[in-house]
C-alpha cells in the first residue's frame, strides 16, 4: 500500500488571533478526487492555500509524498494550483503561459513548447497557442489555467473553485471533462467548492468543513445517508430536523409522541432526529408497513422535476419531496397521511 | 538581502528629496548675514526683513491674487468643459479634450514666448491681464483632470433621477451634480492654485519691476546675490507648501500608492 500523496496532521491557522483552521487531519491517496466542501468562511480555501504554500500555519505538518513541506516556499513544493480567477499572465500568449512551469524546471525551450502543445491538446485547446488571455472566453481561460497546471505532471493538483465563474451548462460540461482528465492522468485532485451538487457529482470522497474544522469525511452517498453531525445533515441535501424528547423511562418521543422508541432501541445522550424529505410518502390512505402520521397539507411548491410539500404533523412542520405524479389527488388543507419508516430515521448527537 | 538594499536606497532617496528644502529653511534662520548651514544661531530677523520690504510684500500679494483669480476663471471654464466631454458624444470631442489638456505637457517656455509675441500685437503684454491669461491656460488642465473622473456613469444616473423628479437642468446641476464633483473640484482647484503660485517659466515673459510674482523675483535675485533674506522668502514658500500638503492629506488623503488587493 503506497503512502498517501498528502498527509496533514494537526494543522492550525489563525488570522489576527481568530482561528481559521483548527487541528485539521486529512489523508489523500494517490489518484483520488477529493472535494473540500463547506459554506463561505469555513476554511476550505485557507486549507488549500496552506497546502500550496501561500500561508504558513501556526501548528501542524503537511507531508507531500512523505516529504515534510510545511515550511517550504510554494516554488519548492511538487504540486500545482488552478486559481479561481485563472491568474493567466496577460503579457504572455497561451503557449507561453503553459510553457512557464516546464521552463522553471530547467527544461529546454523546444521541449517546453512540445509539452505545452501536448497539454493544450489534452484540454481541447489545440490551435490556441498564439492567442492572448484577453482574447479568450471564460471557459477557454479556465482550460488554459488547467493545462498550465497539469503540464508539470504534479502528483497533487489544487483547484480553488475553478468553475464558479462559469454558467450552468458550461459548468456541467467542465465537471465531466475534469473527471476524465483526472482519470487519464492519475493525478490526485483537491477541489474546493461551496456547491454540494458539484461535490456529490465529482468527488471520490467529500471533506465537509465548518468553522475551520472537518465535520465529516466520506463518500457522497455515505455522508448523505449517515450524517454524523447536525451541520452535515443540514448542509447536504434537505433535512427535517426533529426534536427528540427523552421520557422518564428512557424511551424517546418524537413528534409529540407520534413516534415512540423503546429504551432498548434508543441511543444515549441528547439527540436530534433527521428525516430526509424523499423518505416521507404523502398519501390519502395509510401505507402498509409504514408509520402513518395524520397530517395537514399546508403548501405545495413545484420545482420542475419534483415538488416540495409542507405538512403539519401535530405541532411540528415537515417537508416532503414528491414526484409530480404522486401529487395526484392531493390539495391544500387536505387531511393526509405522512408515512415514514423507522429505518429512515437517523439520530445525531445534540439538540435540535 | 535585496530588500535591505532597497530600504537603504529608499532612505537615501527620501533624504535627497528633503535635503534642499530643509537646508533653505535652516539657512533662513541663521544669525549670520551670509548663508551658513548648519545655521549659526536661530533668528527670525530675515523673515521680518522680508515682511517689511514692500517689494516682497507686493510680490506676495501679486502671486496670491494672480493665483486666486486664475484659479477661479479656470474653474469656471473647466467645469462646463468637463461636463460636455464626459456626458455628450460630439465630433471633435477627443480633439477638444486633448487641446484643453495639452498645456500640461507642452513646454512653458514655448507657451510664454508665444503669448508674448501674440500679446505684443494686441497690446496684451506686461500687465496683470497678460499674466492672468497665460496662467489660466496652464492651470485649467488640473481642474479638468480632477473633475472629469467624478462625472462617471453612476453619477449620470443620479442626474437622470433628478430630471425624472421634475428638476430643470440648472437645478439638477446645482443640487445634484455640484455636490458630487465637489471633492474633485476642491483638489483640482488646490493643484491649480499651487501651479499658478509657483510658476516661473511662463511668468518671466510678462513681469516688470513693478508687477512681479515671488518666484520671478527670486529668479531674478539669485542670479546676482544670495543672502538670508532670499532664503527667508524661499523658506516661507516651503512652509506654506508643507501646510497645504498636510491639509490635503488630512482632507482628501494622499495614499495614492495604496496597497494592492490581496
Amino acid at each position: 500500500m503506497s503512502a498517501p500523496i498528502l498527509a496533514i496532521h494537526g494543522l492550525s491557522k489563525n488570522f489576527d488571533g481568530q482561528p481559521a483552521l483548527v487541528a485539521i487531519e486529512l489523508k489523500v491517496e494517490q489518484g483520488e478526487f477529493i472535494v473540500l466542501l463547506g459554506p463561505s468562511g469555513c476554511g476550505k480555501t485557507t486549507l488549500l492555500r496552506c497546502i500550496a504554500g501561500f500561508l504558513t500555519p501556526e501548528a501542524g505538518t503537511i507531508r507531500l509524498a512523505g516529504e515534510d513541506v510545511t515550511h517550504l516556499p510554494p516554488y519548492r513544493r511538487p504540486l500545482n494550483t488552478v486559481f479561481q480567477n485563472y491568474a493567466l499572465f496577460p503579457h504572455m500568449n497561451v503557449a507561453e503561459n503553459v510553457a512557464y512551469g516546464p521552463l522553471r524546471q530547467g527544461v529546454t525551450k523546444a521541449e517546453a513548447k512540445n509539452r505545452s502543445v501536448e497539454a493544450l491538446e489534452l484540454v481541447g485547446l489545440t490551435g490556441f497557442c498564439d492567442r492572448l488571455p484577453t482574447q479568450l472566453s471564460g471557459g477557454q481561460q479556465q482550460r488554459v489555467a488547467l493545462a498550465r497546471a497539469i503540464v508539470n505532471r504534479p502528483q497533487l493538483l489544487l483547484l480553488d473553485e475553478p468553475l464558479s465563474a462559469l454558467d450552468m451548462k458550461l459548468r456541467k460540461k467542465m465537471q465531466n471533462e475534469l473527471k476524465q482528465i483526472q482519470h487519464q492522468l492519475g493525478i490526485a485532485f483537491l477541489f474546493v467548492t461551496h456547491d454540494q451538487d458539484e461535490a456529490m457529482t465529482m468527488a471520490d470522497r467529500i471533506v465537509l468543513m465548518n468553522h475551520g474544522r472537518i465535520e465529516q469525511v466520506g463518500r457522497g452517498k455515505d455522508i448523505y445517508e449517515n450524517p454524523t453531525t447536525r451541520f452535515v445533515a443540514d448542509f447536504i441535501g434537505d433535512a427535517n430536523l426533529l426534536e427528540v424528547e427523552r421520557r422518564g423511562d428512557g424511551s424517546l418521543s418524537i413528534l409529540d409522541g407520534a413516534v415512540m422508541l423503546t429504551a432498548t432501541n434508543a441511543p444515549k445522550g441528547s439527540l436530534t432526529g433527521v428525516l430526509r424529505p424523499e423518505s416521507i410518502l404523502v398519501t390519502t390512505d395509510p401505507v402498509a408497513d409504514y408509520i402513518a402520521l395524520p397530517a395537514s397539507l399546508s403548501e405545495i411548491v413545484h420545482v420542475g422535476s419534483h415538488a416540495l410539500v409542507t405538512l403539519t404533523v401535530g405541532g411540528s412542520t415537515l417537508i416532503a419531496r414528491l414526484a409530480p405524479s404522486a401529487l395526484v389527488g392531493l390539495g391544500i388543507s387536505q387531511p393526509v397521511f405522512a408515512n415514514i419508516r423507522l429505518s429512515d430515521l437517523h439520530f445525531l448527537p445534540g439538540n435540535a | 538581502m535585496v530588500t535591505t538594499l532597497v530600504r537603504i536606497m529608499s532612505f537615501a532617496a527620501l533624504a535627497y528629496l528633503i535635503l534642499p528644502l530643509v537646508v533653505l529653511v535652516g539657512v533662513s534662520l541663521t544669525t549670520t548675514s551670509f548663508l551658513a548651514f548648519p545655521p549659526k544661531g536661530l533668528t527670525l530677523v530675515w523673515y521680518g526683513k522680508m515682511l517689511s520690504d514692500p517689494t516682497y510684500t507686493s510680490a506676495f500679494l501679486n502671486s496670491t491674487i494672480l493665483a486666486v483669480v486664475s484659479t477661479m476663471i479656470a474653474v469656471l471654464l473647466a467645469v462646463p468643459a468637463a461636463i460636455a466631454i464626459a456626458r455628450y458624444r460630439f465630433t471633435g470631442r477627443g480633439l477638444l479634450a486633448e487641446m484643453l489638456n495639452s498645456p500640461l505637457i507642452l513646454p512653458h517656455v514655448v507657451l510664454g514666448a508665444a503669448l508674448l509675441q501674440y500679446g505684443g500685437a494686441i497690446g496684451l503684454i506686461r500687465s496683470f491681464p497678460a499674466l492672468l491669461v497665460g496662467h489660466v491656460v496652464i492651470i485649467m488642465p488640473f481642474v479638468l483632470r480632477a473633475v472629469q473622473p467624478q462625472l462617471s456613469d453612476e453619477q449620470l444616473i443620479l442626474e437622470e433621477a433628478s430630471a425624472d423628479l421634475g428638476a430643470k437642468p440648472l437645478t439638477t446641476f446645482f443640487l445634484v451634480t455640484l455636490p458630487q464633483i465637489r471633492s474633485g473640484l476642491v483638489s483640482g482647484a488646490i493643484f491649480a492654485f499651487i501651479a499658478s503660485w509657483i510658476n516661473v517659466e511662463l511668468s518671466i515673459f510678462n513681469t516688470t519691476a513693478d508687477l512681479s510674482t515671488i518666484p520671478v523675483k527670486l529668479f531674478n535675485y539669485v542670479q546676482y546675490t544670495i543672502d538670508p533674506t532670499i532664503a527667508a522668502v524661499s523658506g516661507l514658500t516651503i512652509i506654506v507648501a508643507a501646510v497645504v500638503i498636510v491639509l490635503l492629506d488630512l482632507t482628501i488623503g494622499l495614499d495614492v500608492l495604496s496597497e494592492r488587493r490581496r
Partner: protein
Amino acid sequence: MSGGKGSVVLLCALPTAFFAAFFLAPMAVVLIVSLTTPAGHPTLAYYLHILADTYHWDVLWVTFRIGALATLTCVMIGYPLAWYLVRVVQWRPWRRFCVILLVLPLFTSNIVRSFGWMVLLGRNGLINDGLIGLGLIERPMRFLGTELGILIGLTYILLPFIVLAVGNALAKVDPDLEQASADLGATPACTFRTIIFPLSLPGLMAGAVMVFMLAVSAYVTPALLSGGKITVFSILIFQQYSSVFVFHYGGALSITMLVLTLALIALAGRLSEPRRV
C-alpha cells in the same frame, strides 16, 4: 442625455473660445512669424539656419544628453523607491508620510528648489563639506556651472514623477499572478524578472518619456545651475525673446521644440499601451 447639440455648444463655447484666443492663436502666430521674413514674405530661412548652423546641434546635443542622463538617473533611483513604497512598506502612516515627502517638492517652485541646490552645491556648500569630511576629495569640487550640477538639480525636480508612475504600475500588478508564478516553480527573483517587471514596464516607459520631455524643455533649473556656462535649448529660446528680440528666429526655435515635444508625446502614447514582452 437630453439637450443634445445646443447644450454642448453652450457648455463648450467659453472654454473653447478662451483657448482659441489665448492658446491656439498665439501658437499660430508664432508658426506664421517663423515662416515669414520681417518684410512679410514666406520663407524657410530661419529653419534652414537652425538646421545648418552647428551651434544648434551642439546645444541640442547638450540638451538631449543632460535630459537622457537625468531620465536614466531618475529611473535608477525612482524604481527602487517606488518598489519600497508599494511593496516593502507595511505601515500605512509611514507610507503616507513618505508620499508627502515625495509630493512636497512638487508644491514648491522650481526656482526655490534650484536655489536650494545652488546653496548645497556651492564651493562652501554642504555637499562639498560632506565630501571633504568623508575624505573622498581634498579640495572643493565645482558643481555649479557643470553638467553634473544641472543633472543633480534636474533629477531632483523630476524624481517624483517617475516614482508616482512606477508606483501606480506596480500597485496594479495582480497578486494572484505572482502566486501563480511561485506555484509554477519560479523563485521570487525569477517572478520579478518574468512577471512583475514586464508588467510594470508600460507605466515605467510612459513615465520616463514624460520625464525626458520635461527635462529637455526645462528652463529655470539649467539656467540657474549652469552659471551661464552651459546653454540648453530653452535658454536659447528665452534669449531670443528677452534680449535679442528676434522673434522670427525665436519662433522657429520654439516651433522646433514644440514639434519635438509632440513627437515624444506620440511615442509615450504608443509605449503605455499594454504590449507583449
